[in-house]
């Protein structure tokens, strides 16, 4: 695809987000409240809220190309399902989701044509959302759609994107698809695309509010501050452990030893039951799930660490974060046997030498 055949989008389709909000009856107060929530989540100073809201209102309705690769649709389920219509969901509906083959009615060639048309119209400006890992082994033959491998489709779609948002741990780091032994050579988007701004929003699935918050933040002020895994620091800046309401039980040494003991019933720390909170950066403990109803640890299960690279290969889910990551004990037993054998041989050699030396000494004394 090139920029030469780019079409201009009709003016009435390039409304600002403010105009769309007005049309949907979202009042100024409600919009400001939403922006205050986002800026607070992103640790911006309160004084920034008005400017943030102004920038967001002025932003053009963005075109989104949503490319699913090696995925399970869980991330999309997370994004589209909310128990009550919220401003977050409205924000998601506000964007022009021009291609998503799970949600759209079109299929086959018509769907691909729609995608190409949308990309041409917004070439260089659209946001590319990727969902799922990308298989790379054998020239990417393990994943293909419309006659093209996922690798090729990603390269093509990324070329005209203003930025790429990798949704879910699979698109971010390879996720389940990349779990050992990774038969398809699955990787995250950032392993393939190197020349575009990439924002990773990992999770299995990611929190909907984190997703919309990241998009809104991008629309208002560009790529947010990212950590070393390209995750927005605003949502992935703290560990689950640091923000966990059960942290006080960790500090006082009160742990659940099994899922049905007194500790579990009392809501004590789940560290010993394999909770990955200490090494997992995510916003579950603060934003929670299902409209702030609960989150895994509050429901009695330890964190799985699903927003971290290689979370699938960090030992058993019920083993602690410091557990060993190898199962082979045969080599250690072999080392023990070898240690005993070498030690015995060394002692026998030393004793033989000692005997020989003392025999010589006795001979010299008697002579």
């Amino acid at each position, binding site marked *: 695809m090139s920029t030469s055949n780019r079409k201009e989008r009709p003016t009435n389709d390039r409304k600002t987000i403010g105009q769309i909000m007005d049309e949907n009856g979202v009042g100024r107060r409600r919009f400001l409240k939403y922006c205050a929530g986002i800026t607070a989540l992103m640790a911006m100073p309160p004084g920034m809220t008005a400017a943030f809201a102004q920038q967001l209102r002025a932003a053009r309705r963005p075109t989104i190309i949503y490319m699913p690769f090696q995925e399970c649709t869980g991330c999309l389920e997370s994004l589209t399902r909310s128990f009550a219509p919220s401003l977050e969901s409205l924000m998601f509906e506000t964007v022009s989701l021009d291609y998503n083959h799970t949600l759209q009615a079109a299929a086959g060639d018509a769907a691909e044509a729609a995608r190409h048309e949308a990309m041409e119209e917004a070439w260089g400006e659209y946001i590319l959302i990727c969902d799922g890992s990308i298989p790379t082994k054998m020239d990417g033959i393990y994943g293909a759609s419309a006659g093209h491998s996922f690798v090729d489709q990603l390269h093509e779609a990324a070329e005209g994107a203003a930025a790429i948002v990798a949704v879910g741990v699979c698109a971010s780091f390879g996720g389940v698809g990349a779990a050992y032994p990774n038969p398809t050579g699955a990787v995250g988007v950032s392993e393939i695309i190197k020349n575009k701004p990439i924002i990773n929003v990992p999770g299995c699935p990611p929190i909907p509010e984190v997703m919309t918050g990241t998009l809104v933040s991008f629309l208002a002020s560009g790529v947010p501050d990212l950590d070393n895994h390209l995750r927005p620091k605003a949502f992935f800046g703290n560990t689950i452990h640091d923000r966990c309401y059960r942290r006080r039980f960790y500090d006082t*040494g009160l742990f659940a030893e099994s899922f049905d003991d007194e500790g579990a019933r009392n809501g004590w720390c789940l560290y010993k039951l394999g909770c990955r909170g200490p090494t997992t950066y995510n916003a579950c403990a603060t934003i929670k799930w299902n409209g702030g109803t609960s989150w895994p640890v509050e429901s009695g299960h330890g964190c799985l660490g699903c927003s971290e690279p290689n979370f699938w290969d960090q030992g058993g889910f019920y083993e602690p974060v*410091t557990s060993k*990551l190898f199962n082979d004990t045969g080599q*250690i037993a072999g*080392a023990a046997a070898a*240690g005993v054998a070498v030690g015995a041989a060394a002692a026998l050699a030393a004793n033989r030498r000692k005997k020989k030396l003392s025999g010589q000494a006795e001979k010299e004394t008697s002579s």
Partner: protein
Amino acid sequence: MTLLEFSRGTMLHIALIVFVFGVLWRLVTTFMLGWRKRKSEWRTSAADSAVKGAIAVGNRSWPHPEFLNRTAFGEAVGYGYHIGLFAIVLLGAPHVVFWKNLFGINAAWWPTIPSGIISVVSVVTIFLLLIATIRRYMHPPLRRISNFDDWFTLVILFALMITGVMAVFGIGGRYELILAAHIIAFNVLLIWFPFSKLMHAFYILPARFFIGYTHAKKGAST
């Protein structure tokens, strides 16, 4: 592979192989060297000598009254950081779950100490270790008998203790990197252990026993 995965996986595996091999090599060699041939008659029975050997383990673990004034400080510091290290390693919750996982045991009876107390003990232990290090450097005879073995062991111990405290207090960087550094320091300690004076952990009690035992057999008091 992340640094934490490497430290908990490949490196820990190699470190354990080296540790088990090295420790058994040295212990088996030492214990198979046997007794020196004695031509004089034994003065005490084997059973009585064994009792005196056991008494010597206790006696020699306590400062001799005659030298108490000169050795009390060093002994107190030494005991202090050893007790601190044992408390942290054997009773700190993250360490207990590590050992249980490593040995594949459930051991629900294994107690843990609240992390607040462990944090205080850790800081005190680092402080005591620092005093012991300064004393080793400032005390002429101690300095003279110290070599690379002693100093390198102290470097590993400081790295281990400081990264542990940093992980607990969440300072100095991202938790998973500090934790990885902590586990790497532990792995280095495991690899270094069999070839260093750290082997005193295995030798010290049997050595005291055998000294008491042989002295008793010869008819000498300890």
